[in-house]
């Protein structure tokens, strides 16, 4: 569906129907990327929702993506997370979530996966971690990753190769 949106003419892209199709196609990956950034399930959904609202506003005013919408959405999500981190003084905990322990809502497999992602992040620098995830988890190219992270394609390649070299020195991370 994403490829179909990419090849659609601009007039179709600006329509609400096209936006809704793009939304359905990109929502899971947007949530996943937001989770990578914030490491919290509900916060990730909030970031994804805010991203979609901003994207819709931009879409309505004709400032939609030129090509693949996924990197465009990732850029918006990344800016939202950076803005939130700048504003954050104390973490806000809503009452509805206060009595909810992580073990009560997370399955063992999900906790294990989250722990593995945490271990991966500890091995790498933040830039290497993000570049590797964008490359291998989201299958994005150097140009797209560079646009998201604000790096040149060469800088992306450097971060990816250094991150892989680090992981090769610690193969136990992948064995978990």
């Amino acid at each position, binding site marked *: 569906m994403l490829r179909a949106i990419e090849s659609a003419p601009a007039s179709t892209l600006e329509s609400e129907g096209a936006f809704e199709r793009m*939304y359905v196609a990109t929502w*899971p990956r947007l949530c*996943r990327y937001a989770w990578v950034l914030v490491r919290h399930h509900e916060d990730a959904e909030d970031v994804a*929702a805010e991203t*979609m*609202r901003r994207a819709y506003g931009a879409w309505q005013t004709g400032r939609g993506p030129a090509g693949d919408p996924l990197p465009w959405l990732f850029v918006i999500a990344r800016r939202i997370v950076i803005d939130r981190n700048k504003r954050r003084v104390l973490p806000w905990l809503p009452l509805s979530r206060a009595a909810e322990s992580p073990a009560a809502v997370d399955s063992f*497999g999900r906790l294990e*996966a989250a722990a593995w*992602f945490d271990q991966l992040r500890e091995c790498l620098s933040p830039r290497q971690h993000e570049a590797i995830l964008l490359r291998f988890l989201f299958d994005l190219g150097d140009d797209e990753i560079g646009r998201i992270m604000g790096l040149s394609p060469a800088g992306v390649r450097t971060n990816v190769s250094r991150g892989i070299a680090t992981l090769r020195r610690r193969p136990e991370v992948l064995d978990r």
Partner: protein
Amino acid sequence: MSADSFERVLRDRLKAGAAELDRSMPPAPSLQALLVSPQAYRPARRPAYLRLGFGLAVAAALAVALISGSLLLGQSPAVRPLSSITPSATPSLATPSQSLITASPSPSLASPSGWPPVTAVTAELAPPLPTIYES
């Protein structure tokens, strides 16, 4: 392990982990609900009746506080200026023996026998005051 196979293993591992995380991810909410309200797309997690109940509880607590506060204000004695208060000549009802507070002996400067008076000791220890000469 060659570079390609390592990258393939890494990719598979990442995607397997992400799939495990996605398993508990709810499906995409309707776009209309998402665009209309920031929280409307998650009605199951933050139900409206909880917010309504919390709001009602806060309103009831405020009402009780206001009512009790107004009652307390109505019962409080009128404030009189200090100048209008005259000291009462009536003695206290409590006899000295009934009083819970017993008067402690006043500290005396008298020193034990054989010791110099405290005033004399402090005068010895105190440094002499500087003399001020007027020019």
